[in-house]
């Protein structure tokens, strides 16, 4: 529910509408007392590198902010949907790269727009 309303950075549709994320792409495992591992596998709309990382970033930020329980988060591009998926997966799961991206005012602005709750 938290991620379905995230908007695509390029199009005026949500990630759910564009089938970038679906209910089946979300996996939750219990890893401790009240702690869960959340794994998201998303399918980018176009095999364009920067957009895929941006979507990954939006997913991470939204989930980090909104999940009401202790969690560890892994976000991946679903296998076979992108030529440089290993590179992208590595970037979006590296906490320093993520933090650096969010410190970039332009990127941050785009992410904030995409994750903003609909009115």
């Amino acid at each position, binding site marked *: 529910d938290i991620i379905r309303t995230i908007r695509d950075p390029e199009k005026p549709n949500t990630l759910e509408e564009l089938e970038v994320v679906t209910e089946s792409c979300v996996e939750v495992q219990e*890893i401790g007392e009240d702690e869960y591992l959340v794994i998201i596998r998303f399918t980018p709309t176009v095999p364009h590198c920067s957009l895929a990382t941006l979507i990954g970033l939006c997913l991470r930020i939204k989930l980090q902010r909104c999940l009401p329980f202790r969690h560890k988060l892994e976000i991946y591009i679903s296998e076979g949907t992108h030529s440089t998926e290993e590179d992208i997966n590595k970037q979006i799961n590296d906490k320093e790269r993520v933090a650096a991206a969010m410190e970039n005012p332009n990127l941050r602005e785009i992410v904030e727009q995409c994750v903003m709750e609909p009115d």
Partner: protein
Amino acid sequence: QCVTTLEGHENEVKSVAWAPSGTLLATCSRDKSVWVWEVDEEEEYECVSVLNSHTQDVKHVVWHPNQELLASASYDDTVKLYHEEEDDWVCCATLEGHESTVWSVAFDRSGERLASCSDDKTVRIWRRYKPGNEEGVACSGTDPTWKCVCNLSGYHSRTIYDVAWCHLTGALATACGDDAIRVFEESASSDPQQPTFSLAAHNSPGWAVTLHCSASVLSTSVEAEPSRRKRPRVSFSRHMSLMARAVFPVSFLE
């Protein structure tokens, strides 16, 4: 009181380290470079080398315990070693083997071994073999070769962000993204060419680990988590100060 600001890196500086001599400082950055700075008696700093060997962000730099040999860990999955050769700093070795970002490195007390930890959830131990070594490990020219002699896998369930090697007891401590600190000890019967380590201590709810020692202190820090709705901040009771025990074996206190 800030005595000087060293500028030059084009992106965040991730790690700094003083050489044992105290006259050299190494820095590394997300700009993929490692810089070596020299300081004189008047506390004047001068950049003596910019090393662009890594192909991605450099996460950590550390000096050899008694030689002017520098090690760096990178997002490019390698560890690189540098030393001065004829007035120029050069990369003299590249340690390949990790399958993902290497977050940190640590030398053992002798400086003949190096431990590296990675996003691939393993800690690898590397050993230096000098030219003409007894074990018959090939070296190119006059540079020693570093060979991976141990791979600690299956102990960590997430990225290992830091590793520290106690120079007093030889214990290896790791900091992992699964919120646990682990301490490994080398087996008494460990073969130098194929050392074996076993898990000696691990902090998880219910365990308190104390190791006592006079000089060596291992401290860990916890990354503050963003506040969550309906949940208190992760309490700092999980932050542990571990001090390595010099004389007595490791014991667990529940």
